[in-house]
């Protein structure tokens, strides 16, 4: 994305997200942030640190531990014309708000014959890898991606962390932003002159003709690392970052399948009924004759994510596993 002529600055994913929210709040009085510990505490992951001081307690609103009520309240405020950003601390706790997201936010437009729309943005942290145990390590993005009426995006780069939100806030329908916890400290170069980005197209992060590695979110860095390793062995892997799980950019997926003929899908979610299954099915439906080898999936082992470091590592997709799957497909 960055050309030599464009001045850039190095920024963390966390800072990019904070800058994005602050900017949106400065530009639009309808935007406010609400969630557990977003204010005085500065955000569980320090994403909103300092925002209370700038915007005050009405617009950086601490909530009780009431996921159903404050997500539902965000939906109501959105219905009434505001542009709430609701932060749910993690996807694990979002299950307490599942009713409001699935039964209200996703349905109100269609069920009312198009009379209502719900322009809410819900942000939440997802993923494992920090020894937080099974109840703080879910990757359940696909649950939401299953539901028509929702949009589900997974920024994996600082540019997407910075520029997906304004597009999401402009969107008239509910958008859920999944932020993998392992990405917050990641750094990247951000062009000084950025602009909002789309929410529905996958992007090739690394070109290559030998094997296609399809992934998103927190698995992108591991997958890019795998591509680097593969390159050292003379295998040129293409890395496709989905960016959005709903809508899913099927066209880009088929293009990757058609141009590499070998596909590895990397997903921190479980394999069974996961987004990897949907991607594989899309390829089977739309590009099966392009394949020279069976599709391989590198997903989390079908266990609750354990605490002990070595066990957690073994449960999650790792670079070595991605490299091994790709190598097998190209016959090395």
């Amino acid at each position, binding site marked *: 994305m960055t050309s030599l002529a464009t001045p850039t600055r190095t920024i963390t994913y966390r800072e990019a997200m904070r800058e994005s929210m602050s900017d949106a709040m400065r530009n639009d009085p309808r935007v*406010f942030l609400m969630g557990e510990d977003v204010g005085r505490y500065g955000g569980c992951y320090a994403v909103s640190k300092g925002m209370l001081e700038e915007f005050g307690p009405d617009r950086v609103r601490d909530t009780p531990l009431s996921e159903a009520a404050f997500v539902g309240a965000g939906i109501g405020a959105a219905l009434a014309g505001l542009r709430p950003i609701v932060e749910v601390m993690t996807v694990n706790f979002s299950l307490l708000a599942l009713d409001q997201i699935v039964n209200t936010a996703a349905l109100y437009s269609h069920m009312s014959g198009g009379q209502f729309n719900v322009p809410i943005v819900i942000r939440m942290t997802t993923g494992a890898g920090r020894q937080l145990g099974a109840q703080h390590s879910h990757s359940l993005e696909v649950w939401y991606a299953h539901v028509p009426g929702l949009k589900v995006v997974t920024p994996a780069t600082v540019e997407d962390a910075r520029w997906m939100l304004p597009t999401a806030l402009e969107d*008239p329908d509910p958008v859920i932003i999944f932020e993998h916890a392992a990405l917050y400290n990641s750094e990247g170069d951000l062009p000084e002159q950025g602009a909002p980005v789309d929410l529905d197209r996958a992007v090739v992060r690394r070109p290559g003709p030998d094997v296609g590695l399809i992934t998103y979110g927190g698995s992108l860095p591991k997958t890019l690392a795998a591509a680097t390793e593969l390159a050292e062995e003379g295998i040129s892997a293409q890395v496709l970052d989905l960016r959005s799980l709903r809508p899913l950019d099927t066209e880009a997926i088929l293009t990757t399948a058609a141009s590499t003929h070998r596909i590895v899908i990397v997903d921190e979610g479980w394999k069974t009924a996961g987004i990897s299954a949907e991607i594989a099915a899309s390829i089977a439906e739309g590009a099966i004759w392009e394949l020279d080898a069976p599709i391989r999936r590198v997903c989390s082992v079908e266990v609750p994510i354990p605490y002990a470091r070595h066990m957690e590592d073994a449960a999650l997709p790792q670079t070595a596993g991605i490299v091994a799957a790709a190598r097998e497909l190209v016959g090395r």
Partner: protein
Amino acid sequence: MSDSHHLDLLRQMLRIRRFEERCAQLYQAEKIRGFLHLYIGEEGVAVGVIGSLLPDDAVVATYREHGHALARGMDPGAVMAEMYGKMEGCSRGRGGSMHLFDASRRFYGGNAIVGGGLPLAVGLALADRLRDQPRVTAVFFGEGAVAEGEFHESMNLAALWNLPVLFCCENNLYAMGTALERSESQTRLTLKAASYEMPAWEVDGMDVLAVEDAARKAIESVRSGGGPHFLEMRTFRFRAHSMFDPELYRSKEEVEVWKERDPIELFTRRLITDGGLTEDDLATMESDVAEEIEAAVAFAEAGTWEPVEELTRFVYSEVVPS
């Protein structure tokens, strides 16, 4: 209070009653399908509360909401067409009996998840607070919702943030087939509100004037910054929970006792005794109501089916609001 206002209250209740009686017939005739939850017996609640709101206030209702929709001024033809599943219905035939909507009247459904409408109401009120609009959001729910977490979370949030919500609990004693004393350790529902420091009153839901009186006081207080209020309206549904309910959980005697407190009969008798209504007036009113309902049925009958090609419209918004 003027006689004409009283007559209007009676007329509103009668419209709902006759409309729903017609719905029951149309269900038997298989014109209406799916779930059909009748409000018969509870009309005084919707009429008393919603009639006390201003046009710019908001209403969030349950799946037993025909009465609320009509009391809010929604066109009976559009409501009936919705039950028929016709495109001219108030939700384009997408919603059915449980999902009546009208954006122009700030009628936000038609929510068929018990307790699911309460957080929404809190959010509508939050938006009013943040924009300094002196509007009230009235949210209706049954006593069954009191057992839901969403009820408690919403009550707490509304009270904590001092939001302009009127919580209207329609206590008809049965959550489907489960009696209140079989579902709540504390059956005095106003105590739940009191635990959130919320003013709460018990109201005779079979007396439309009592409902109206309580609603007016509560709405005035809510509107003037007094924070959320809770009204427990004691009422009873005379019909089964839905058209599939054999009513094994309550006795015919209990239903008969409550029918003696029919809100429409009580109020009619009162108006006749007071001299504000004659038998002739009543007959005229009945005939006007019957005419309106037959017109609604005719509108629904004449309605059209949405083309199947439009199935996927409105999953996402078509118009980007400014």
